[in-house]
């Protein structure tokens, strides 16, 4: 079932890709092949190869239970929030919270997770910013 859905997505994506490729406007510079031919070939390969899993699917993978999927979704949410918070809150604060949350969800006790968060953010700051001079996001407090 998983493979069939995946194959269908590939075929749909291929269709969309080829359609988009035909919409590319050509500029005033032209070469014999033009900018849309190669993308159309790629779309064709994607569509053809996508048919195979529909016709002959592999055994479905073991998808995690709903609880684990929610855990993964939570981790993704943490990362997205981290990416958005980074320029606002600065490197140390944002990294500390994000690393602590991830470590907690990977099985550390809350207190240890907090310690890990502080350790990871201060450690990275010390090595990459203070020692190696990499510029990290500056927050309202300058770190």
């Amino acid at each position, binding site marked *: 079932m*998983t493979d069939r859905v995946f194959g269908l997505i*590939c075929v749909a994506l291929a269709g969309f*890709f080829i359609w*988009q*490729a035909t919409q*590319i406007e*050509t*500029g005033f510079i*032209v*070469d*014999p*092949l033009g*900018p*849309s031919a*190669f*993308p159309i070939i*790629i*779309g064709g*390969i*994607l569509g053809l*190869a*996508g048919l*195979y*899993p529909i016709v002959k699917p*592999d055994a479905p*993978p073991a*998808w*995690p239970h709903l609880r*684990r999927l929610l*855990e*993964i979704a939570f*981790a*993704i949410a943490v*990362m*997205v929030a*981290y*990416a958005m918070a*980074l320029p606002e809150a600065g*490197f140390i604060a944002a*990294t500390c919270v*994000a*690393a*602590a949350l*991830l*470590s907690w*969800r*990977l*099985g*550390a006790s809350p207190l240890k997770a907090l310690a*890990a*968060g502080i350790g*990871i*953010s201060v*450690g*990275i700051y010390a090595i990459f910013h203070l020692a190696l*001079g*990499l*510029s*990290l*996001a500056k927050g309202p407090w300058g770190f």
Partner: protein
Amino acid sequence: MDALSSLADGFAVALTLQNLLLALLGCFLGTIIGALPGLGPSNGVAILIPLAFTLGLPATPALIMLTSVYYGAMYGGRISSILLNIPGDEPALMTTLDGYPMARKGQAGEALALSGLASFVGAFFATCGLVFLAPLLVKLALLFGPAEYFALFSLAFMTLGGIASRNQAKAAIAAALGLGIAMIGVDHQTGVPRFSFGEVSLYDGINFLVAIVGLFAISEVLIFLEHKGEGEADAGKLKLGRVTAPLSMIWNCTGTMLRGTVLGFLAGVLPGAGASLGSFIAYIFEKRISDRDGSFGTGNPRGVAAPEAGNNAAAGGALVPMLALGVPGSGTTAVLLAMLLALNITPGPLLFQSNPDVVWGLIAALFIGNFMLLLLNIPMVGLFVRVLLVPPRYLMPAVAMISFVGIYGISGSTFDLMVMIIFGIMGYVLRKIDVPLVPVILGVLLGNEMEKNLRRALTISDGDWSILWGSPLAIALWTFAILGFVLPIFIGRFVRPKAAVGQAAVEEADPD
């Protein structure tokens, strides 16, 4: 010999204090990366590239550090294979078969010493092979025109898909996805935007470093989250005595190591095969010719020496097509290629002429690094054993955060971080449904180059497609490409590592 005098110049480049320190750092980090289960060479190098890049290292030192990481990871993979029965990275899978039984018999120290030595032999002779084979390949590659290059890129995709994947259709899907992603952005030849939907951030295309770190590192964190609490290292199992091997054991395994080296090197040079295939072939071949009493799989030292010589030799072999042709043969060399491209260096025959200091400095550094690795991996192996005890619940958040730091350092844009997370999710889903990631990466990396060569060829022929198979060289390349894709369907059962070992539970299908 021409190659030898170039190599001497290379040693002059490599033997500066900065480069030696970087090589040592790379070897050290690489061994750790290889030893930690779940953090393979491609992931490790992928995370470190943005850092090397943002730190402003010039090409030669950056390349020296990262290839040292690559070699180091090949050495390190065996440590957890032998002690924990968990391969530290994909190519070390075969080492579990005899390494773990040896450790259970109380021979952990012997197994580690012997496999360290085998790694050294494999890597050393493969680097020698690189010195002589790469310039020969360069001479051949100078005859290539755009049509031949297009055929060569196709060959890389087709052999990669044919040999490395269990399902050719899925490998083709992966390649098409990667190539499709490469098409995003302004077309280099005509200047029109493609697939960017009016989003200005997409006009530059997707930065391949963002794609690589997302696909490898972020998806790894998600995979870990799914399997948390399974198979963690247990301090009780990690006892080892003195790390030495008796001379008689080494003497008995000399032939084994040399055979493993030759087979591994050949497997590495083939585009698309990589170190996993090298260790697999070396083990199977050794088992065929020297397993008289059926002791393979129960702790035969030869079963440890063969795959370790094989995978390290393959790691060196895989550098040959990457440096000489600009076509990587495996996942990690694809990642190394990404770094060269990020530094505005295009590998291939011209690299040997225009930047000989980069190539030969790198090769010299590999020789030096190899000796460092031997020292790190036999007398000091206890240090790395302790690293294995760091629980993933602290390690993986650190990996994720370092990935973010690296990507943020390149562009300072939140948009790139979001794209990286999307690639992470994509990588997770693709790994779940057994679609190999390496063709995706290769597509993202080579897509524009491939299209450029196709369009150049057709401009030369004024739109006549037959130029693509218009020379004997091109025909030969196409023949190899088709054979590489089709043959494994029929004989694949014999050369595909995972199916034969019966450890299909290992999710990755990527050659490292």
